[in-house]
């Protein structure tokens, strides 16, 4: 594994009105314990707001969490907002209840991870570290 020199900065974001927060909170602690700088936006966010936060916080990664099955809608909007702000170099990863058929579409769009519930935390952390070491 390539060691990352500076601390990874990651935004955990929930876009829309999804109330299921347990996954986001779990990852917040897991990422912190893994030595990352974590900012959790809280619920009820807009795609534009998330991107703005990512820019302000100089984030390497936006981690989207959603348990409504709407990740495709959410990720599309966030990628658009990233493009509009000219910061498409920020990686986007996703997790939550993501319909299986949406995963290849998300991967093709450049949204990686797409982890479901019960994924071992080490696997998610490893994915983030690898993403940032390129």
């Amino acid at each position, binding site marked *: 594994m390539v060691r990352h020199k500076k601390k990874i900065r990651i935004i955990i974001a929930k*876009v*829309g*009105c*999804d*109330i299921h*927060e*347990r996954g986001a*909170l*779990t990852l917040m*602690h897991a990422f912190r314990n893994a030595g990352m700088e974590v900012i959790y936006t*809280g*619920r*009820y966010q*807009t*795609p534009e707001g998330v991107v703005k936060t990512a820019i302000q916080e100089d984030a390497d990664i936006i981690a989207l969490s*959603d348990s*409504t*099955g*709407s990740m495709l*809608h*959410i990720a599309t*909007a966030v990628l658009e907002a990233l493009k509009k702000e000219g910061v498409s170099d920020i990686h986007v990863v996703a997790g939550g*209840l993501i*319909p*299986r058929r949406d995963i290849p579409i998300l991967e093709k769009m450049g949204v990686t991870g797409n982890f*479901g*519930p*019960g994924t*071992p*935390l080490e696997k998610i952390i490893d994915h983030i570290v690898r993403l940032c070491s390129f």
Partner: protein
Amino acid sequence: MCAINARKEVAFNRSFGAIVRTELQSGIPVKVIYTPEDIKNLQYKQDIGDPGEYPYTRGIYPEMYRNRLWIKSFIVCYSTAEDTNKAFKDYIASGQTGLRLLADLPTQSGIDPDHPLAWNSMMCGGVPTYSLNVYEKMLGGLPIENVDYELAHSSISSALFFYSMFPALMEKKGLNIANLRGANINDPFRSRIVYDTPDWRDEINRRVCLDLIEFSAHNTPKWKAFAPNGVDPQQTGANVFQEVAEVLGSAMAIYQDIIKERRLKLDDIGTTVVSMDAESDFFETIAKFRAVRRMWARIAKEKLGATTERAMSLRIGIRTSGISLQTQKPLNNAARVTLQILSCVLGGVNSLDASSIDEAIGLPSTEARHFNIDAQHIITHEANVPLVADPLGGSYYVEWLTNTIEEGAYKLLEKIEGRGGMWECLKSGWLRGQIEESRLKVQKEKSEGKRLIVGVNAFQGEEGSINRAIERTAYKVPSKKARLQTIASIKKLRKNRNQQQVKEALKDLYRATKEGRNIVRPTIEAAKAYATIGEIVGVVRIAYGYKYDPLAAIETPPFIKELIREVNQ
């Protein structure tokens, strides 16, 4: 068979799958055996009593299930009013006896479908029930009077709105609203701790919660306008002590306010309903129901001045744990759900909403729901479980566990009181902090292998065609097209409704809110005029001096600005 030949050798381990923990789900350590010694201080008459007798440990009715089975209830709420209506009719034909409603996530947050923040969660978790026209469609052809309806919404504004739509609908049809039956949650502590709903701040939530209880006590006496909720705190991470303390703490805080501020007695309210969780831990769940009934009886009598049997008895409504269900090997969820249902029946609950085996994947499919109903029929008619009331009463273990949960929950209630009460503990974030601590403990134990979840962190195995079929059949979220149709339909409603009537109704809601009058009647009238959830939430916010939009993304609509100006002239 080639499958047998594929493995030349297999390592044999006699202790494979052995017990890895000796604590229950909430961390209660248990011994190998319980004896009379463990319950020597327990007095049958005082502490247990027969079913239907104070302190109701064994159940609230003398005949229990022989006279009346638990209500078979579950949330039916798909993306459209049409799908939901069809599903209700289908489930009623299979034996559903309680109709539980919800709405999509934006509606529960207090915003309309055409709000920019609604798009990404629109029609998820339920129907975008933005106005009475959708309600009329959703409940079309279903009986309204003398049916048990249950409203499970997260926010106080949606409790108010969805309650109010019933009298609106009934009065429009010429029905007597006194025949409305059922319950809504309307628990402001749960709204903040679990959901942090953006609609209204706590001061508004507290007032509207009381308004609803007061209005219902006078006008719809068969309706329970407050059902403190422990399901969602537990799903967020609370342990059994925290769940019980929160439910009872919430009930005490709200009833103390009702008695003091609204001149009602607990006797006027009658039986209290609580909604609780059924977790995978079998005995902990059973003992919890017994403990909470006994605790409530004593609290109602000693702290809240109840004098009638009804006011001291607690009706328990259940939602079985959603978080215990797994996406890996979903067929296993059938075993989890069945055990959870069984624990509810052994614990003497009064209404049961069982989660379905595909719920970790999407909204329940019709067939998965039928499994839930059939499992309950099997427990009743084949396993003969409900014939005898509280069949585990008198078990050294179950009685000891009931006492243990009671003691722990009382300790927590004392702590809450020492910290200034529920509202203070909500404001300071202490309640949420406690739950967070429990959640992290569980998370740590799972990742260290001290808590095994079959198919997830242990016994992974492989999925075959049955499991894959379950994944495929779960209900999917709506397409972009369906979402656009919803936006078009609310725009059409705004154009076609009688705008003058909406304006007058919202004016009255604004005045009542400002003047401190009960706002339920004005909300019913606003619902009749087809005002939307976003408009009702916004007008109340303005009356309290906040901006119209709880999410600060849209301006106040011009006609609302105008009506407020007219009132204040």
